[in-house]
């Protein structure tokens, strides 16, 4: 009974990680770079949606679309300005640039929106909580998050396997040089990857902020890192892996909080990560090359 409720709260937390991890794994799988700014794009998305809703000119649906549009543009612009000039640089240089972009976004948000935390309205109030039994409740936001994550996961997998741009992505992922020789436009493909990844960030921002209604310029940073861990957990580059990794991370985190120590939960999560990576260096689903996007 108690175990079940810990498990459910772990799945709720994990579903948010999973959703963010999809964006990480997508960009890594194709562009072969760790976009550390992903968490901060989520934060920007959160602020855009928050501003649109609190201006009360738009309905939540329109606000979410605003968020998706702004994040997509932001993702493409970041890629063009910060990452494209480094296309042939060492991976370390790109990584440092991504960290730089992350701080830039945080500080710009700090200037524009201020440091005080905003209270993000729960826009999924219409979805009723699911009372499994007495004292055991799954919140509406969790159900929506899991549903959205599943839909996105399936959609992305189909997109990558059955559309032309998706096949181009697979080609770029496998061998960038060869893909270019075969007439695939690498730059466009990578831009498209960033556009999709950032649009996912906007969706994630809405669900993250609805579940944990605290929005400030640092909101995206920690979930971003945890989601990155989740992506590595599941096998970075693997789309179903991101989902499994996210959920597992949330469950392990909450169970270790409940049964071992509420202070050590992060240490335990990372210890499990080390164990899994030493047994399976590519992560849980990292082996299946065919799943790589």
């Amino acid at each position: 009974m108690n175990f079940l409720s810990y498990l459910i709260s772990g799945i709720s937390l994990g579903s948010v990680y999973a959703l963010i991890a999809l964006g990480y794994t997508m960009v890594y799988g194709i562009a072969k770079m760790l976009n550390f700014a992903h968490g901060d794009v989520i934060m920007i998305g959160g602020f855009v949606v928050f501003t649109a809703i609190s201006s009360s000119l738009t309905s939540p649906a329109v606000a979410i679309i605003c968020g998706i549009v702004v994040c997509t543009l932001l993702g493409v612009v970041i890629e063009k300005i910060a990452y494209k000039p480094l296309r042939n640089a060492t991976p370390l240089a790109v990584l440092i640039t991504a960290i730089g972009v992350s701080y830039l976004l945080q500080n710009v948000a700090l200037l524009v929106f201020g440091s005080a935390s905003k209270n993000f309205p729960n826009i999924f109030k219409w979805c009723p909580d699911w009372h499994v039994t007495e004292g055991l409740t799954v919140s509406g936001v969790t159900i929506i998050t899991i549903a959205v994550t599943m839909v996105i996961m399936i959609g992305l997998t189909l997109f990558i396997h059955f559309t032309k741009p998706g096949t181009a992505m697979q080609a770029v992922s496998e061998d960038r040089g060869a893909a270019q020789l075969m007439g695939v436009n690498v730059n466009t493909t990578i831009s498209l990857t960033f556009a999709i990844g950032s649009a996912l960030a906007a969706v994630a921002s809405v669900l993250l902020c609805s579940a944990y209604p605290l929005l400030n310029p640092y909101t995206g940073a920690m979930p971003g890192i945890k989601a990155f861990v989740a992506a590595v957990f599941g096998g970075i580059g693997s789309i179903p892996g991101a989902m499994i990794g996210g959920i597992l991370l949330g469950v392990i985190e909450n169970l270790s909080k409940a049964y071992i120590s509420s202070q050590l939960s992060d240490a335990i999560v990372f210890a499990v990560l080390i164990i899994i990576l030493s047994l399976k260096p590519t992560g849980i689903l990292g082996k299946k090359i065919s799943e790589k996007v």
Partner: protein
Amino acid sequence: MKKGFMKKFAAVSMAVMMTVAMAGCGGGENGGDSSTEFVIGGIGPTTGATATYGEAVKNGAELAVKEINEAGGINGYQVRFEWQDDEHDAEKSVNAYNTLKDKGMQMLMGTATSTPCTAVVAKTAEDNMFQLTPSGSAVESIKGDHAFRVCFSDPNQGIASADYLAEKFAGKTVAAIYNSSDVYSSGIYEKFSAQAQEKGVKIVTAQAFTKDSAQDFTVQLQKVKESGADVVFLPIYYQEAALILTQADKMGLDVTWFGCDGLDGVIQQLGSDASLAEGVMLLTPFVADAEDEKTQTFTAAYKAAYNDLVPTQFAADAYDAMYVIKAAAEKAGITPDMSVSDICEAMKTAMTEIEVEGVTGTMTWSADGEPTKAPNAMVIKDGTYTAVA
């Protein structure tokens, strides 16, 4: 990966800042004419994760300085207030202190947060510069006889909370949720649990969280629920408290919430869910909605000056800090042409002799720098803070 990078980045920026600071030494072009005005420095985080506190301190201090100058200054001399950002980082704070010295600072009102304050207080001790922190609440933040503070120290809040619970909630069981990665929160909790034991308050469960896992509290709340506690002690800041109240409401947890000054701000944070804060109790020296005339005047002036922003306890502490400096300076009869060290000697004697009636209460100081003032128990009722009779 990110943290390691941060350190390197900090090292490089330190080097740059030091070069700039040292270049400033020779010129002294910022020094001004030190014999015609007092130069009081202020340090706090106006960027970074704790920027809210630094901004509030800066605003509160600037408002007080403006009022003091309009009323004729201190001992007939105008006051110049110089501010530096420290991003809540000890090294940057020491740099900020050096920069302020170059600008001719004679007294320091700062720093706003505990960890940097602990680093800077060692520097002010070396220079024998008078230091008054508005809100550095860690014990070590005012080490030395030259440093004083306006706020309560963390242990004092913990002890006062345990005493209050022992008296008003005798026989009830208590649970605690605190942030083990934060000196403020864990500092209060440690003293609280020690004092609770002494006073016979039964703590049935103590749940911790860290700043890296400060979003999901369902497990901690579930544990509290299982423990059957009547009262939950929350020595934490209002951001996390807002999340805890929201999640507890979803779980149907029915307890009395009790916190310290960090909870001030929880009503605004909850926004449209402000009703969740009903019945939350807190021990705090300042709430913006208090009925007394002094608080109301301050709140109105602050709102007028800063775009309708509601002053927090940090703003009130800083506002009081400036008036405390004024009172002590007048008692000591210091003038701007005295040396920093002479000012400090005169000020630290005067501090123990004055009594200041500020917006955070009526305060006196002991030689170790701790203020004596009464904590007020407040309860949130109909969306405002009401004093508990």
